[in-house]
């Protein structure tokens, strides 16, 4: 399994043709206390760069854009009851959704861990 990152502070964990997607610890630190997460419906086909989810802090709502295209296979229902998971475990328990990767070439433009660390430095 490898983990890739977008410039917009999302992570993608790639397992075969399935990508699990969430936001980075850096993103949650910028957002502040997360109080609500809206996820896409299972079965929805996402196009790369379209608004796929929404994260709301006390103060504001932020869109999360689909980092790649593909059908939504599964969403993390734990976030509905416990949105603060995004603050406590952004890279782990607070995954947002899984997609079936439609076009593997879309992964080419993403960053690896080292490049992402440089991006936020």
């Amino acid at each position, binding site marked *: 399994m490898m983990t890739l990152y977008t*410039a*917009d*502070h*999302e992570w993608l964990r790639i397992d075969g043709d399935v990508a699990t997607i969430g*936001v980075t610890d850096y*993103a949650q630190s*910028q*957002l*502040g*206390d997360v*109080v*609500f997460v*809206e996820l896409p419906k299972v079965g929805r086909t996402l196009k790369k760069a379209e608004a796929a989810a*929404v*994260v*709301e*802090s*006390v*103060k*504001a*709502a*932020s*869109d*999360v*854009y689909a980092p790649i295209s593909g059908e939504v296979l599964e969403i993390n229902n734990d976030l*509905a009851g416990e949105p603060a998971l995004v603050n406590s475990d952004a890279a782990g328990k607070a995954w947002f959704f899984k997609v079936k990767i439609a076009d593997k070439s879309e992964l080419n433009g993403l960053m690896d861990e080292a490049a992402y660390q440089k991006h936020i430095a």
Partner: protein
Amino acid sequence: MPAVEVSPSPPPLKQTPLHALHLARGGKMVPFAGHDMPVQYGTGVLREHLHTRSSAGLFDVSHMGQIRLLPKSGRIEDAARALEALVPQDILALAPGRQRYAQFTNEAGGILDDLMVANFGDHLFLVVNAACKADDETLLTEHLSDVCTVEPLRDRALLALQGPKACSVLAKYDATISAMKFMDAGPRRLAGLDCFVARSGYTGEDGFEISVPAEAAEGFASELLADAAVMPIGLGARDSLRLEAGLCLYGHDLDGATTPVEAALEWSIQKSRRKGGARPGGFPGADEILKQLDHGAPRRRLGLKPEGRAPVREGARLFADATSSEAIGRVTSGGFAPSLSAPVAMGYLPASHAAPDTVVFAEVRGQRLSLRVAPMPFVPNTYKR
């Protein structure tokens, strides 16, 4: 998600006398009403909010305008009578040492700004909104200069200490603070400084607003923050606290096209300025406002509780049902209420939809979410009456 926005530099932002302290305390600075202000500190909005409700929070509100009205005759009633020409409140009956909430109105009855007016014995002391203060100073100078000297106090900072422990913290400096009641206001000497203290605030909590000389503000604020009960609080929690308390934010819940009656602020208009009172009318927009006091306004500011978990924020359009295409109102403030762990909002709806528990729908990201009309404040206030 979008990259963190960097605010454009021009025009240069003003700094309050506490600016260095905000930076030293890890304040995340944002532009607000022309000032570089902390939206939160390291602990975040949620903890700042809850700390204010359970202990005491210190707010820098130095961006607000402080204005003194000195009667040229030396008689306070002359200043009071003159100010009554600009606000629908009874200022003549405001006793020395007392403060009152007021609004400057326009000819249509809309609100130009909302403010606090205190009687300091030989003069009136006003606190106005930061974004409106230049216009307010012009308004006061144009209308009151014959009777009063209008003196903006630019060399003073303004702090708010709010929460259940605010009184014990402040009473260390002056024991008479404890005897003050909600909306008592007057000069006090605290830590050797000439302060003006009012027992009031913008959180729904017991607390104080303290005007201090600018050059001593940082030292005084640091002393207050040295008390373990006190935490610095940014604009983020200031907004969520006032929303829970059902209090209006000018430019959002109030504006020049909204009357005090529409805004559900009738309680702030005393009998003496109404029909049949001692001095009915005589303020801008009196015809419309007095008419609405008798017959009601076509729309009204109301509390709204979303039935789901999603916050419904400012600007969301409100509909009578899940499918109708015509909006009947709009949310003017909305977000998450940390004390309730639930979303709350306020907005304007037609009188036909103003009854408690009426269900309306807000459009959020293309979906219709149901909300119920609810009484405000959302969190009971704890004023020391």
